[in-house]
């Protein structure tokens, strides 16, 4: 809600922001990143969802109310502090390899794993291979307010162990993070989902990304691992998602390696890759990203026809879906869009029967269903994310969910878990001959599915020397 307060302050209207205890630092950092330092907060003691009504109201009146009044009426002191930060080419740490590792970990600049120390020379050499102007600003990171520069992306690429030929993939991922539709500013939400990056196009094989056995395992494919590590380092160092600033994940998820689709298998069966769902022309290199709450292995799928294997796959999609229904309606609206990853042999079962991806999506829509009472309880009673505790029939009458959710008033009727068949996303990857699948529940508006093309052409931006920033403007 600091974003709301900032919009009001910018319009000349004073604000005070209500936050639960424990959110003070994140709120302050968000305000600072948006240009407003020390905006007033009124703190709700504890967490309102764990309090009875009388307890919550008593605490609010006793502890919070005076802060609301003060926040709107007491002048904000300027403490005169100015935080001097290093510039891009300054030496931030000088020391031996061990000392550099220790300093980076201690200052929160690394994930704790060993890094390649980003010396100036190493970063310059890295960028020289790509031809990119180091001082180009791609956008502003939200919520930190930091510039996303080519230089800063390259520093983190060196640290993660990424090779220069992977840099175009990293630039495309930066485009995702800067796209408001993706919503990078939500990357520290309390439920703690983490990104899944899907790679499509000739780049998969050209750069040696693993799409076979262990497709989602750390270290099974070096490019898959280091590119995903870079993504996490950038969220940490440039976007500000550390525990002392913007990361409020209660548990968080581990970083996921890049999922590369099996382009050969897709070509064989005539299916477009995942990125085509988001407007990328098949054959064009691309990254597609969404944040995922959790995943579930669908083991030992048995069947030689689509009709035999759809029920198990659909059941798995329903089982991986709980709190996420708030992205069908609640936190979001029609933004729940889970992912089914088929191993190539399972994808071939569909293709052999002449099924397109759309046919699979339609079948999943018919089979992946849960009782209406369960749906309503998850978004209303158990999670309190739907104001007014409205039923699916109410929501359909308002036009915010499709009529298929309200075909009767029977609480035991089965309803879909997404608003339309195409909301089921499908990718093909993994050991080509194993009959396993994997399902992921996405985190809706906290990291909407977003695709960006990858431009692997040599950049001509580097028309100035690194010493001569002015010539690059």
């Amino acid at each position: 809600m600091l974003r709301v307060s900032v919009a009001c302050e910018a319009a000349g209207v004073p604000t005070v922001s209500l936050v639960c205890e424990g959110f003070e630092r994140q709120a302050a950092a968000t305000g600072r990143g948006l240009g407003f330092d020390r905006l007033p907060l009124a703190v709700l003691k504890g967490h309102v969802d764990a309090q009875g009504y009388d307890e919550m109201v008593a605490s609010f009146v006793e502890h919070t109310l005076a802060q609301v009044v003060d926040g709107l009426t007491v002048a904000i002191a300027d403490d005169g502090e100015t935080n001097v930060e290093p510039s891009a080419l300054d030496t931030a740490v000088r020391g031996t390899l061990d000392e550099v590792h220790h300093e980076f970990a201690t200052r929160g600049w690394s994930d704790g794993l060993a890094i390649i120390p980003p010396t100036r020379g190493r970063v310059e050499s890295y960028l020289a291979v790509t031809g990119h102007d180091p001082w180009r600003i791609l956008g502003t990171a939200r919520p930190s307010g930091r510039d996303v520069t080519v230089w800063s992306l390259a520093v983190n690429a060196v640290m993660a162990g990424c090779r220069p030929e992977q840099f175009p993939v990293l630039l495309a991922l930066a485009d995702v993070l800067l796209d408001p539709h993706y919503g990078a500013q939500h990357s520290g939400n309390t439920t703690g989902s983490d990104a899944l990056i899907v790679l499509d196009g000739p780049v998969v094989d050209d750069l040696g990304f693993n799409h076979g056995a262990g497709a989602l395992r750390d270290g099974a494919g070096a490019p898959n691992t280091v590119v995903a590590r870079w993504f996490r380092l950038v969220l940490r160092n440039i976007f500000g998602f550390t525990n002392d600033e913007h990361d409020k994940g209660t548990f968080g998820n581990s970083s996921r390696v890049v999922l590369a689709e099996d382009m050969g298998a897709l070509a064989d069966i005539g299916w477009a890759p995942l990125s085509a769902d988001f407007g990328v022309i098949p054959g064009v290199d691309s990254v597609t990203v969404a944040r995922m709450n959790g995943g579930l292995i669908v083991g030992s799928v048995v069947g030689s026809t689509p009709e035999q294997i759809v029920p198990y796959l659909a059941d798995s999609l329903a089982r991986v879906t709980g709190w996420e229904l708030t992205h069908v309606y609640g936190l979001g609206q029609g933004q729940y869009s889970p992912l089914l990853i088929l191993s190539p042999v399972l994808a071939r079962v569909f293709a052999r029967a002449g099924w397109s991806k759309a046919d699979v999506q339609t079948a999943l829509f018919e089979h992946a269903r849960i009782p209406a009472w369960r749906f309503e309880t998850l978004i209303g009673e158990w999670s309190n994310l739907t104001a007014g505790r409205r039923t699916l029939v109410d929501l359909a009458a308002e036009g915010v969910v499709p009529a298929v959710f309200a075909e009767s008033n029977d609480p035991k009727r089965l309803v879909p878990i997404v608003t339309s068949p195409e909301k089921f996303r499908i990718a093909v990857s993994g050991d080509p001959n194993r009959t396993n699948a994997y399902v992921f529940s996405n985190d809706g508006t906290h990291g909407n599915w977003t695709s960006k093309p990858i431009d692997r052409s040599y950049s001509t931006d580097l028309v100035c020397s690194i010493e001569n920033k002015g010539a690059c403007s």
Partner: protein
Amino acid sequence: MEPVLDVVWPKSPLGTQSRRPAPRLDSLRGKRIAFAWDYLFRGDELFPVLAKELTERFEGVEIVNYDVFGNLHGPNELELVNGLPDALAMHRIDGVVSGNGC
């Protein structure tokens, strides 16, 4: 002898211009105070309590309820937040209480 490394900073400069907050109000008496809600964390129970307390304590205070501005954290967040300056002006708002970040 182990080599000594000069290592650069992995962060990037702040690109956001620092701005002064809006002037605070001299008092809440006679002011129009808006509630801006993210439709989360029991705001529908807390804001009525706040409205009652402010109305009792400050003569002439007027409350503009959250439903006037919509769900500011939902699927239309960007559009609604971008539209706030106009909405505040239209409703002649003097101060805003936003919530709930939990």
